[in-house]
Every structure is written in structure tokens, then in C-alpha cells.
């Protein structure tokens, strides 16, 4: 690990303000400073190495809240990924294929019933769901994003047209299906009251461009959302290597309960596949993927 400016990891820039803990899912679950970006950075500043910090390194779900709010622009997600690679010892290079549509493993394996509505939405907005050689029903292979998150692989920047699952953005430069949905709200039948779960990775990491779209949704429908006073998105941890692999499992049920604490909405809508499954399982409320709301 290197400390300082330039291309190095800049944990040395952490001034300890603690803004990052406000929406940190690991902190919300445990209340332990050491599991937050501030805690990791202070430990690194003290000279600790990855081997001294296994638990803090694995607590992070890469939701991006800390990067978005940090006044010192510490790149906390990069730091965690590097620490995980340090722990893993050797990371392989991954090479996901370029595709018009990347559905992601969660949709393909655990929610294939969403595929028709996704392709129908893309058809309506004039975005092809497949290229010659693509097969949206089965030929897509795992892009390796979970291996990247686990420190077992280095990130690739493959190109894709549309990516449906935010977790695949570790591997692709593409447009997010959920963001496209926000740009075409008139295509959907969204009857308030509902709770909309915005994809935290997308909102937090591409905040300036994406947040206004979700804010517009909130203003238009008056819906409850997982956006906090900082205008950043909170997560359930479902769409992370912990939530998806079962490794270092998180209390997703408790996270869902926390998010819904003040919402009386009977219906939950989201454009994040893992969170769609999490809310369906744990909320006890009707849960829909955004494309299931097509008119």
C-alpha cells in the first residue's frame, strides 16, 4: 500500500471528520468505527497492514457512500479493493465480453422472470437488447464482478450498452438500466404511495448526473426513498459480495427494516436486482422491479 498523492492510495488524506460513517451500512449494522472508512484510514495511518484489518476490510460493501461524501476526496472504494487484493495475494486479470445488454448473474439465476419486461423496456426506448452473437436468455457469462470485489481479480473496463445490475459496474462502462428508467418515467405506471429503492452504487458513484433523476422521481410521486439528508443513497448490503456470496454475511433483514422504518408505503419498487430480492424476502410488502411497472 502506498500513501499520498498521485496514483497512490490516499488514505493519508483522511482528516477524520466522520462524514463517511453517516450512511455506512457496516456502521449502521454494528456501530463499530473500525469497520468504516474513517476507521480503516486511521488504522492505516497508524501503520497497520491488511493482515491486521481483515474484519474491517471485509465489512465494506462498496456502496460508495463514503467516497461521495468525503470532503478530502479519499478514494475509499479503491483502498478497500487494494486491501482485499493484498489479502488475497494474487489477483487474476478478468476479461468480460462486450455486450449490448448485461443482465448480471442475479437476474439470470435468481430472477429470470424479469428478463421479458427488461427487454420490452429496452425495445420501447430503442435500445437493442442484443448484438449479433448475444443471447439474452442464456449465453451471458458471469462478468467476474464478485471476484473483483473479493480481491481475487483486477477490474476490467469492458464496454456494454446497458447493464441491468449495478454490481456489474465494477466491470463495465455502460448505461444503467435503472437510470434509463428514470429518463423514461412516462412509460411506467407508478401509483403512489410507494417506496422506491434507488441503486446506491449508481447514485453515490455518479452522483452529479444520476441523483437529480431520482430526486425528480421523488418530487413527481412524493414517494419515500433510500436517500438521506445528504442526498446520498443508503444500501441494504444485498447487492454486494457479502450479500450475494453469503461470505461474511450481513443482516440484510435488519437493513431492510431500518430503511422502511418511517415508510408506510405498501409497495416497493426498485431497479436493483439484488435489492429487489431482498425486499421481496424481508419486507413483507409487495415488491416490484421497475420494468414490471411498464404500462
Amino acid at each position, binding site marked *: 500500500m502506498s500513501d499520498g498523492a498521485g496514483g497512490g492510495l490516499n488514505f493519508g488524506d483522511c*482528516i477524520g471528520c466522520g462524514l463517511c460513517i453517516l450512511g455506512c451500512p457496516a456502521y449502521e449494522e454494528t*456501530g463499530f*468505527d473500525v469497520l468504516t472508512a474513517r476507521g480503516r484510514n*486511521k488504522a492505516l495511518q497508524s501503520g*497497520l497492514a491488511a493482515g491486521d484489518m481483515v474484519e474491517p476490510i471485509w465489512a465494506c460493501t462498496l456502496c460508495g457512500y463514503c467516497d461521495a461524501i468525503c470532503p478530502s476526496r479519499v478514494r475509499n472504494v479503491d483502498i478497500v479493493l487494494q486491501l482485499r487484493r493484498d489479502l488475497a495475494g494474487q489477483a487474476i486479470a478478468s476479461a468480460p465480453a462486450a455486450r449490448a445488454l448485461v443482465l448480471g448473474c442475479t437476474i439470470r439465476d435468481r430472477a429470470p422472470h424479469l428478463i421479458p419486461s427488461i427487454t420490452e423496456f429496452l425495445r420501447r426506448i430503442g435500445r437493442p437488447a442484443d448484438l449479433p452473437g448475444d443471447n439474452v436468455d442464456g449465453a451471458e457469462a458471469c462478468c467476474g464482478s464478485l471476484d473483483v470485489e473479493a480481491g481475487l481479480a483486477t477490474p476490467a473496463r469492458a464496454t456494454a450498452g446497458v447493464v441491468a445490475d449495478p454490481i456489474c459496474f465494477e466491470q463495465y462502462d455502460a448505461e444503467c438500466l435503472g437510470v434509463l428508467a428514470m429518463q423514461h418515467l412516462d412509460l411506467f405506471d407508478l401509483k403512489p404511495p410507494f417506496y422506491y429503492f434507488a441503486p446506491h452504487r449508481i447514485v453515490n458513484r455518479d452522483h452529479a448526473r444520476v441523483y437529480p433523476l431520482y430526486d425528480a422521481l421523488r418530487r413527481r410521486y412524493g414517494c419515500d426513498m433510500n436517500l438521506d439528508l445528504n442526498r446520498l443513497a443508503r444500501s441494504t448490503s444485498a447487492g454486494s459480495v457479502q450479500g450475494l456470496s453469503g461470505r461474511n454475511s450481513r443482516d440484510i433483514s435488519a437493513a431492510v427494516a431500518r430503511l422502511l422504518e418511517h415508510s408506510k408505503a405498501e409497495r416497493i419498487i426498485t431497479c436493483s436486482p439484488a435489492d429487489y430480492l431482498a425486499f421481496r424476502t424481508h419486507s413483507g410488502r409487495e415488491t416490484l422491479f421497475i420494468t414490471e411497472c411498464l404500462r
Partner: protein
Amino acid sequence: MYNRGVLLRTDRASRACYRTDGGQVVYGFPDAVVHARSAEDVAQVLRTAQRDCTPVTCRGGGLTTEGESVAARGILLDLKGMHRLIDCDGDTAWVEAGMTWHEVAEALRPRGLDYTSAPLNMLSTVGGTLGVGGIDVNSPRHGCAADQAVELEVVTPTGDIVSVKEGDEYLERVLFGYGQFGVITKARIKVRPYRPMAVRHFLYTDIGVALADMTRIVEEDAADACAVLTLRDDVVALIVGFEGAVKALPIRSTPEPVVYAKMALQYARRPWKLGDVPFLLRRKAGLLPALHDPLFVHDGAVHDRTVVFSRLIWRYWGGPQVVIPDLAITKANFEAAARRGIEVCKKYFPYFTLYAVMIRKFGPRPRYEMSAIPATDDDHVCGIEFSPLLEGARYSRDHFQRFKNAIYDVGLELGGSCYRFGGVMKPYVRRMFGDEMVNRHRAMKHQLDPSFILNRDVVFDPPEAA
């Protein structure tokens, strides 16, 4: 894995993450960290520590600047795990003391409510704030955050859990008590309806005129919030907030073009000072856009101004070394303290900023006795923070200490006191309050905390040193 039942941690990472506080001047490693989840947890720690004479250092947001929440040994008692809003009746909220003010705001907002007065830095916790004061831009009307508390649950240094209300002697000792007389575990704080705030700023070329105008606004109760912030000693902004309609104000600000013309004239006379221009532009660019950010500003008003201000201060003041000596001064000496403080700043740093506010007092309450609130008959206290803007430069600890001492000396000479008098600034305690007062409070401390374990080196000399 993340076992919430594990409350005591001794691994290196868990201890290392508390190595310093917001000031980043004092460093230390506790022997163990305890994450309290309830008053019973706190009581158990204090009882055990009292028996074993183990120092206990309390920590909330960890945003002290003089090392008050840094533990060099013993137990670091982290209270942030106590962060629930327990109930709210519309006028008051009963909250756990480990809640940050941000969490309080998040919890109150769905009810259409807001806290009354809290530090601009929302990462501070309720308990830590009530122990020192807590100053907001609306403190001219509402006073310190500590004056919003009407009931407390406190764990005494010997581990008894007690409830106290307004009028009780012990409550008066714990509020503004710098954590010496007990650990606040719950507080009933005043709340009020949430209202967005229209923010206006007016420029001045003279700090005295700006401070006089702010004083007039406060005395006439002409705005809901106000503060003075300098970009340079001759570029001063009066910031005023309105929670309803924006009103005309009785002020004598300088039109912005005139300010710029005066600056241009100065640079023409002293071209070697032109190097200041990029600094000024950078600071202006860092400050003003936040007050016009469309994410937070709708219909001319700042929504969630607490979030906006909190993030702004870290962007504006934050850095690897945070030094904020601040004076609490009488109205009569407000301008003199500002001018003399500016001269001190100029001697030590090329760039600096002043932030001045007024704080309402509520009569001669015992809680003010040994606090940042000077013992005068004024209905308001005047606070001035002097912050060097380091612009990436590094200075030695000694340099900062000499600067802080020089500022504090100004305050004492003018009959005021200082907001941050604990930790490394402890030598000023007796100069500020006098031996009689300090000895009396120290005796109270000794009676309540016989083993002198609780935040032991923050304000009073421990027995072996005395």
C-alpha cells in the same frame, strides 16, 4: 461475524482508529475500546474502572480539537452505539446521547421537526455537545445546544444511573461540565418545526462595522440566524438566515462592486500581494456555491441547512491539522477582541478566517460557572473563532500552540474566556476561572469520582499531579 454482542475490543485496528481526534494534534492508543449500547453498559464500565482505578475516556463524534477525547491508556468508551430516538412529543425529543446531530435530524424529519440548536458540525454527538455547549447560527435566539436540554439520564462516575431535570443541581453540573461529573446517556432536548432557511450574505471591508451590524440584528431580533465570516481581514461577510419571509435589515454593508474596487486599489498599491488573489478566488469558489446548490436550494431557501453547513465547514476548515482557538467575549470587547485576534493571526499565518457569532444566555445559571460562557450580566455572549487556513502548508505543533496561547491571552486580557479550555489548553483553566472556582469544582469532581477515572486529564490535574 459482526457480533453486536462483543462490546469490548482490544485488537490493534479497533484501538488504532481512535488514535486522534478532530484536531489531530494529540495522539494516543487506548488499552481497550468499549462500545456502550446502554446506560447499564456505561455503569458497568465505570464501576469496574472505579474499582481498578482505570482511566476512562468518553468519546462521541471524536471531534474535540485539543485531545479531550483521545485516550493514551485505559478504556476508550465509545458512546455512538447509543443512537436511538426513543420518543418525541412534538416539543421535546428523548434521545440517546450517542446520536449524532445528523441522526437526530434524520429521525426528526419524518415528523416534520428539527432540533432547536446544535453545532454546525453534525457529526458531534448529543452527549458530547451538551458537555461543552454547542453553538449554532441560531444561537443568538436559542442559546447553546446545552441550553436545549430539559432532562438527562446520567451515569455517575461511580456507576449509578440517575435521572435529572431542569432545576436539579446535578443537571447544572453535568451540562457544560466537560464530561467531568458523569456520562450523559440520554437527553430530552427541545425540538421545533422544521423550516428551510433563506440565506443572504452582505459584504464589509471593516470587521468592526460587520460585528456592530450583527449585534444590532441580534438585539432587534431581526433575523432567525446570523454570523460573521471573514475571507480576509478586510473582506468580511455577514451571513443572515430567515426561516420565513426575508426582511430588510438595519445594516451598513458595502456594495460588492465597491469591495472589489477597494481590493483592486489595494493591489495596485501593493502588487506583491497579488499572490492572495488565487487564494481568495479558491475560498470564494469553495464557499458560495454550497449556498446555491440546486440539490439543497429550492424556492430561494436552503433545505437541510444543517447538512449544507456541516459539509461546508469540513470543506472550508477541514485539513490534516485543525486549529480553532476561540474566544467567548463580552459585547463591549467584541470588536477589540476581533481586531487584536486578527493581528495575532497575521503574525502566525498568511491566511486565516474569523467566524463570529452571538450566543444567548439565560440568566445566571450555575451551569455557566466554569464554562465558555463568561460570568457577566450581558444577555448574550460573543464568540469568535480564529482559524488559520493552511493551504497545504505544514506547521509544527509548537507553532500552533504559540498561536493558540496568543489568542487565548487576548481573550483573558479582555475579560473573556475560551470555548475550548480542556486537553492541551488545560493550563489556561486556572487563569480563566481563578483558583477558588477551580478548586471548588475539583472538589465536586473528587466527591463524585473518588478514583478520578472519568476523562481524568481533560480539565483538572489528577491527584498525583496535584
